[in-house]
């Protein structure tokens, strides 16, 4: 299970966001370069979707098989400012793509996500803040030739693992962390867009001139 919020930021403010995150985290960023392949079952099979993530940031690419479940529903879920959903993941060998083709899955689409991430501990929850550009490939699997789908816009996502017995606390930890980022961007449940915040430009300018220097957590 995981809790997640998303928001967007103009690419020209990403450097300022990074300065803010460095100040909050105090640890170096992790580079993101992930080739994400979305596979769907063929017409003969029970309908299902699976994602294969190939981490290209390391010297030796590593593969993860990921299944994302439907968002939690109901009055309790509606009251949360974060989305809660079941997640199942497994590290796998490089034969993962051939394996899923072999059992009847087809490639629906693929993207390359590039950017960076920071890890935080807030109120006992392990938060990952990722700032990425989503890129499409002009030819099958041509990651070196990928181009941004939305030039000028980056996606910011905060995710945190959760369990049925603690997801409300995790949601609260994410919500409180979002406050630190509010001058630059607003984060909300995926699918509910809040657009670009009007204070982003001035907040970014302030961060760039001060170089960050904020250690809050």
């Amino acid at each position, binding site marked *: 299970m995981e809790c997640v919020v998303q928001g967007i930021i103009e690419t020209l403010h990403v450097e300022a966001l990074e300065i803010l995150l460095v100040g909050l985290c105090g640890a170096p960023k992790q580079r993101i370069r992930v080739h994400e392949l979305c596979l769907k*079952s063929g*017409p*003969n*099979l*029970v*309908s*299902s979707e*699976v994602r294969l993530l190939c981490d290209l940031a390391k010297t030796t690419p590593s593969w993860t*098989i*990921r*299944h994302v*479940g439907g968002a939690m529903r109901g009055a309790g879920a509606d009251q949360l400012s974060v989305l809660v959903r*079941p997640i*199942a*993941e*497994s*590290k*796998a*060998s490089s*034969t*993962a793509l*051939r*394996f899923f083709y*072999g*059992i*009847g*899955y087809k490639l629906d689409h693929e993207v390359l996500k590039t950017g960076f991430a920071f890890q935080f501990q807030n109120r006992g929850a392990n938060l990952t803040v990722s700032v990425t550009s989503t890129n499409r490939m002009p030819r099958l699997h041509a990651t070196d030739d990928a181009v941004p789908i939305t030039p000028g816009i980056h996606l910011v996502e905060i995710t945190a693992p959760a369990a049925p017995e603690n997801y409300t606390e995790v949601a609260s930890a994410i919500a409180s962390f979002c406050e630190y980022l509010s001058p630059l961007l607003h984060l909300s449940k995926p699918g509910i867009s809040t657009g670009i915040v009007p204070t982003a430009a001035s907040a970014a300018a302030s961060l760039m001139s001060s170089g960050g220097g904020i250690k809050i957590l």
Partner: protein
Amino acid sequence: MTVKWLMHFQPNQGTTLTSQVMAEACAVAESFPGVSRDGRWRSAMTFYRAVPRDQSLPAPSDLPRDLIGISLHDLPNEYLFVMRSQRLILRAHSSVQTVMDKLQSYKGRFFINFEGLQYKWGDFKLRIGKCLYNPNEALRGIVMEVEYLPLSSMDKSQRVMEEFYEIWREAVASKLLAGQFINTEVNFVEYGLGDSYTPQHTAVLYGMCVVQVIASSNKNQ
């Protein structure tokens, strides 16, 4: 990972496999000088079948009918899939079983456990076990896994494994067991596997061995 060979017991024509063979095979192992018992072992295999979108129809023929999953006794945090028809192996964390459950496109249809006793004999580890259908525990075969601890190269260990195999066959024959142990032969190159032994090699061995065990069991029933 160090090299393993996998053998199964082939009963003589017209004889029925019983648990007594397991006891006799263990007695053979225990007769080796300097051998020591080293606990128990258990591996589990699942035979998967595709779940068609229209469940009133049989599974389409273009979907694999030979997908198996294996949990190996010495790798409790991992799970391996083998598709013999496509010479394909997937090695993953054991949580991949949860992913497959969530996808619901393939379900486990029947299950086989390999379980028995483990012995240490010099540089060898011997694992003799029953091959049991789950859950009714019907005996389908007897297997023996032989591991040579000093080496990971299959080429370099070939001779010493062949010598062990001959020693074992002679010992079994001298005890007048009603059959013999047959080694599982696999062309690992077809699976994209090299000389350095890996869990993928073990998964392929079990995938081939179980086919022979089931065929042998069906023939003798």
